[in-house]
């Protein structure tokens, strides 16, 4: 296993402890922000117990459950209460270590006694193994691990403080921006930024650390640069991608654009650094984790009054990345369809599993629209609806100057036929796909004014002009 895969697996383990609990982080962030803003004692009384107990214990439970199901969750939580009691700092890191570790110990114990428990005593043994092991582990945690993890946390915190005090925080972009397209960001985000940011919250009421990785500005800059200076499908998909990126907060969507032209890492780093510089100069922060890194969740998590300044930082990151990316994209010829598709594949390989958004790219590029010459319009009888639809589509093709495209109507039972695209009524789409597997299928509900007609023609025209260019 390569180092990259190891870090990645580590990162995804960390995120599976944090991400399921983000709702609790958000609840805590909101209570804290509102409590401090309106200076309400009742709300403020939530802050410390939630931070010290609820959040680490939730992480411990998720970590234990990941290793050994519900029993693992229980013992992880019990053991973690020990490190919480035995130390003075917020025990996220302790929870991340002790949660899975205790569950693993319980698992080994269960394996060792498997088959040796007399019938009818399983429940007793199961309960007491968790109880006794949990009690022991929590004491160990309190006496030895707590202080050890406290000092480890303090080392990290001191490191962060050094960066903050010397205005070196922007340099973290050198690490964060390249890590993102390689899917290594979870290890950084959940392992360091989330716990350290939460520590800062304790002291300052907000933290800029939550903005470092979630800042959508740099990625947006890349997508905008492709939108204006890209070619072919990288240009057309950049628009939709930027909406998903900025508002949906799924940053993965810009990774293929970077992977197909890796030098773009440079504008990303500089852009990210500029964004962070603005954040630190304006002294802004979030009151909780912004995940996903959508502009919406960032605005909701912004410390009161910081919203506009944060947008400034995001915009700075975006503009700097955009400007620096332009020459690099132009130099690479704007990026062709094949390499974007290839990059989307690379992204899946890097991630180690299929990205939920890679289908966005597949649907665009898997089919070569420039080769379309024959379009079949299929319906059940092949007489009326399809004939009418074919007539309309043929007229539209002619009007668009696509004279060589032949649109013909056909009964579904006569498929498959020699064609590249099949258009049919929505209700009949499944039947068409069953018999004509090689063609690109389009379903319409309105045979006469279907918006899909114009989309198809536009795609064919673009694919053809991209070929010629």
């Amino acid at each position, binding site marked *: 296993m390569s180092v990259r895969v190891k870090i990645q697996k580590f990162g995804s383990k960390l995120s599976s402890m944090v991400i399921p609990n983000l709702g609790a982080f958000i609840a805590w962030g909101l209570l804290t922000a509102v409590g401090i803003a309106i200076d309400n004692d009742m709300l403020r009384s939530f802050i410390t117990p939630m931070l010290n107990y609820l959040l680490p214990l939730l992480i411990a439970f998720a970590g234990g459950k990941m290793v050994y199901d519900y029993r693992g969750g229980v013992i992880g939580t019990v053991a973690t209460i020990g490190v919480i009691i035995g130390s003075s700092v917020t025990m996220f890191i302790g929870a991340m270590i002790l949660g899975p570790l205790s569950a693993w110990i319980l698992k080994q114990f269960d394996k060792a006694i498997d088959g040796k428990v007399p019938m009818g005593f399983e429940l007793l043994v199961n309960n007491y193994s968790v109880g006794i092991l949990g009690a022991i582990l929590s004491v160990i945690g309190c006496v030895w691990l707590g202080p050890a993890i406290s000092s480890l946390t303090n080392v990290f915190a001191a490191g962060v403080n050094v960066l903050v005090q010397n205005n070196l925080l922007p340099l973290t972009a050198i690490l964060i921006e390249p890590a993102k397209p390689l899917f290594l960001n979870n290890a950084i985000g959940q392992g360091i930024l989330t716990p350290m940011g939460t520590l800062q919250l304790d002291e300052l009421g907000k933290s800029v650390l939550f903005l470092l990785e979630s800042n959508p500005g740099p990625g947006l800059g890349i997508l905008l640069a492709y939108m204006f200076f890209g070619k072919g499908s990288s240009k057309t998909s950049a628009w939709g991608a930027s909406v998903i990126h900025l508002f949906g907060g799924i940053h993965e969507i810009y990774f293929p654009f970077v992977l197909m032209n890796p030098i773009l890492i440079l504008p990303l780093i500089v852009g990210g650094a500029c964004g962070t510089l603005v954040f630190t100069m304006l002294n802004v922060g979030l009151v909780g984790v912004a995940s996903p890194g959508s502009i919406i969740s960032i605005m909701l998590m912004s410390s009161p009054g910081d919203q506009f300044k944060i947008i400034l930082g995001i915009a700075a990151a975006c503009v700097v990345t955009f400007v620096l990316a332009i020459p690099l994209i132009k130099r690479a010829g704007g990026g062709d369809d094949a390499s974007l598709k290839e990059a989307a594949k690379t992204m899946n390989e890097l991630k180690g599993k299929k990205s939920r958004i890679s289908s966005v790219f597949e649907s665009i590029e898997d089919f070569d629209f420039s080769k379309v010459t024959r379009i079949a319009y299929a*319906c059940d*009888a092949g007489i*009326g*609806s399809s004939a*009418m639809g074919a007539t309309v589509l043929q*007229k539209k093709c002619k009007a668009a100057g696509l004279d060589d495209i032949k649109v013909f109507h056909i009964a579904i039972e006569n498929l498959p036929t020699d064609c590249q695209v099949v258009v049919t009524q929505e209700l009949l789409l499944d039947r068409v796909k069953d018999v004509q597997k090689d063609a690109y299928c389009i379903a319409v509900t309105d045979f*006469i004014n279907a918006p899909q007609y114009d989309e198809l023609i536009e795609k064919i025209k673009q694919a053809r002009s991209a070929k010629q260019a």
Partner: protein
Amino acid sequence: MLLETITTNDVQIGLHASDWEDAIRQAAAPLTASGAIQPSYIEGMIDSVHQNGPYFVLAKGLALAHARPECGAVRLALNFTTFDPPVSFGAGANDPVRLIITLAATDPNSHIDLLGELAEVLMDDSRMQQLFSAASPEEFCALLG
């Protein structure tokens, strides 16, 4: 047979139908009467909706009712029937149907030129709306022009 050959005899205006089956029967009645289709063709159209859903509801408010030639199409014929109130075909966004064009075709290709002319008319949305609300067969034929 092209659109000019459509006469007021081929147009029915403002019929009432209890449901979509009734609408198809009423719309096809003149074709049975003139011998362009056999009664089995009507059942063929209705069966087709039962089997495949209302896929011949082509556009908002417009159905092109037809069956396979072998269901009993005797000769190429076309009939236009508008309904008031419009009829629901269970066709989602294209419901309710205000105009049923009943098509009898004896083979897959002989009526293509006719449909081409028809498409020309129907692609013009304002003209389609005028057809929907035509008050008399004469007005309807004039709009088809």
